[in-house]
């Protein structure tokens, strides 16, 4: 079994390397600008003094590798520098918001994953039935809607003018868990609707592909009951493709969060990112981008490792 641990160790190392390169990319993207970022940032207000001040603030007068190492060491210690807009340490801005965004993402994932797996598997089992065709068309429609459209429809329908849920989600006043779940229901629902559609379609495709395998036919020819064929023969082989599907969509959840937070004025990382991009607040943008990217890489890595562990061909060598 030891070879499997070395395989996993290799994957982890690869993941770390990817993260390192990503941080380089995020940091080094500013170098791509033909002109000077400080001048771009200040625009009309650029005077030699202000430009020099911004340059010093961002450390643009130092060579790039020095800057990068300083930045990276800072990041590892939890120091992301200061925001250009309001001079506060970036890490202060991020800390509570990170928790909020995670809460929202997990809330949506907790509903979406079981729901879409169930719908996807049912659609595959009852292939070409009315249920299958209807859910396929609905899913296709759902993934075609921009998130803000879904969000506003929900607001229109369930909030505003005596609706059931609040249209702006906030955590002011230190609410209880139940209260939090209530206030963030609409944004979570929006996210769920979009992600479920993607996941359901992918799960359905994976299961249909699986059900066409010769060993499934063999199980039927041995006279096994349909339920047993699904549970004992199909499901164990479905783990790897389904894990992949979930990982892909959870990663999608990360970016879906941005628009949803803006619509519902939710105090999360997505909202922060958008505001910072508008203000061209580089340190904040870089920090948030790094966090999102790290989450993405971590998710893909986990999916990779889990898929390897659930593949008997890899676990038990010849």
């Amino acid at each position, binding site marked *: 079994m030891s070879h499997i641990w070395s395989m996993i160790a290799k994957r982890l190392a690869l993941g770390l390397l990817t993260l390192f390169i990503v941080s380089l990319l995020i940091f080094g993207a500013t170098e791509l600008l033909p002109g000077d970022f400080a001048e771009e940032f200040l625009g009309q207000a650029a005077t030699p003094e202000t430009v020099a001040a911004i340059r010093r603030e961002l450390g643009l007068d130092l060579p790039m590798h020095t800057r990068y190492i300083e930045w990276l060491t800072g990041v590892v210690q939890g120091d992301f520098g200061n925001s250009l807009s309001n001079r506060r340490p970036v890490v202060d801005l991020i800390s509570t918001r990170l928790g909020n965004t995670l809460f929202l993402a997990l809330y949506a994932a907790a509903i979406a994953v079981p729901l879409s797996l169930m719908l996807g598997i049912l659609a595959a089992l009852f292939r070409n039935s009315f249920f299958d065709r209807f859910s396929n068309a609905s899913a296709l429609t759902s993934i075609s809607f921009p998130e803000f459209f879904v969000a506003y429809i929900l607001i229109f329908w369930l909030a505003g003018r005596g609706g059931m849920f609040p249209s702006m989600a906030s955590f002011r006043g230190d609410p209880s868990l139940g209260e939090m779940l209530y206030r963030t229901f609409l944004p979570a629902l929006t996210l769920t609707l979009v992600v479920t559609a993607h996941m359901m379609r992918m799960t359905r495709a994976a299961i249909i592909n699986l059900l066409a395998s*010769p*060993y499934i*036919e*063999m199980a039927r*020819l*041995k*006279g096994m009951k349909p339920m047993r064929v699904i549970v004992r023969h199909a499901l164990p082989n479905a783990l790897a493709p389904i894990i992949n599907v979930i990982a892909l969509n959870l990663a999608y959840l990360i970016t879906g969060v941005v628009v949803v937070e803006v619509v519902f004025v939710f105090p999360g990382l997505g909202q922060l990112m958008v505001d910072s991009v508008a203000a061209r607040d580089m340190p904040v943008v870089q920090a948030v981008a790094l966090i999102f990217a790290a989450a993405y890489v971590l998710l893909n890595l986990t999916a990779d490792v889990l898929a390897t562990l659930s593949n*008997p061909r890899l676990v*038990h060598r*010849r």
Partner: protein
Amino acid sequence: MTESTSDKPVLLTMKNLRIEGRADETWAEIVHGIDLTLHKGEVLGLIGESGAGKSTVGLAAMGFTRDGCRISGGEIVFDGIDLMQASEATRRELRGKRIAYVAQSAAASFNPAHKLMDQYCEAPVQHGVMNRDEAERDAVDLYRRMQLPEPDVIGFRYPHQVSGGQLQRAMTAMAMACRPDLIIFDEPTTALDVTTQIEVLAAIRNIVEQFDTAAIYITHDLAVVAQMADRIKVLLKGDEVEEADTRSMLAAPKEDYTKSLWAVRSHARAEQPPVAADKVPVVSVQNITAGYGSVDVLQDVSFDIHERRTVAVVGESGSGKSTTARVITGLLVPRQGQILFDGATLPPDYRRRTRDQLRQAQMIYQMADTALNPKLRIRDLIGRPAQMYLGLQGKALTERIRNLLELIELEPDDYIDRLPSELSGGQKQRIGIARALAAEPKFIICDEVTSALDQLVAEGILKLLDKLQTEFDLAYMFITHDLATVKAIADEVVVMKEGKVIEQGPKSEMFQPPHDPYTELLLSSVPEMDPDWLTDLLRERDAR
């Protein structure tokens, strides 16, 4: 094989069985009213070319149809139970317990996520025939009877940890688990090497006799069915052609189609005069050692091919025959050795060869589906080499294309503008030949060109290649694993195993002893049209 079984009770009858298949949105009949009677303990061979409907009929015996097929008429009665009228639950009860199925590819039919033992015990435990412990002991017993290595341990491996031939025997053992009355063998040895096939055939025959099980043995190989079956039924495109007991049918087939199937193996190439000693060979392979990465696939391979001669390169999978072809065409650069063409050394990499050097050596591939660009019309497929190598244009080019179509015996007006998807397997292979000829080469490599074709169609291709060789003074290198084909077309034979040349020489010498032990094994493993062949062979091998 047991002797007359017609006095035993009847186990399975099919009357006027009709099955329809779906293509796009329409249903069309693919089995047109087959009748079948099987007695207890009897082995019926179901033989026919691809598309005859053998698998479909075999599965119907279990009351099962694949997706896209449905039973549209007739009656299937198994031991008094009408399978058409019975409920799905009843049919499910029968499957695995009283009627079992052995599929063509064991590797694909075993669940990769479960051990062999778990899959063996599933049927008897779920059908209530045995409990788990009894089933495990029974499994080991059956693995032993099937002569599998390490029978007490092998069950605890996963399918991917076991070789192909062993898996096929494990699948047969699994089919026996509930001691069924009937087993359906669906081409169980088609995908195996000829030396492995012997072991599986022997094991199957043994176990069927030991447990007095009835069987339907489906195959397209006549010699194999001769060994395994008491009676043979011939199918053609969903119709029944003929049925008789094995010995009578082998000795005196009645229908023309059956006779033509039997006669296929009688085509043989005329003996050629020996080559003059000083004649320069068209292609000379000299001491080639080649491989991928650090592994050597070929070791010190040498042989010559002369004008108007066919050298058959024979070997099982992994012997290096295809790799040799890749070295000759320049796709793989050898580590040592060289290839000479008409006495001059060829650059080892095809990219360094001149256009004329590339033109002289052409290749025809095994699978016509992947050998022809599906988006190009015949006119372009054949015309392109003529255009590139000979600089033909316009009217001259079209003239040449029509010429080539006539040479391969296809009507030019009819075929020139077709797409490959509109042609049958044999026709596509002829287009492959025409494409090779269009370059006016001196040497053609035929890489298993008949292995994917039905016997009658293959026969046609071999005859065509023969005719073209005489007409155009071509030299052929014919790669194959099938010794019957070798007998039919070769002048010289090169036997390869694991990258080395084991033996080589003129055909007449090769088929007579004395031999290298491997050649002996290879030759003796080829089934012959004699029902006693397998029995005699096993007795001989046991005696050694």
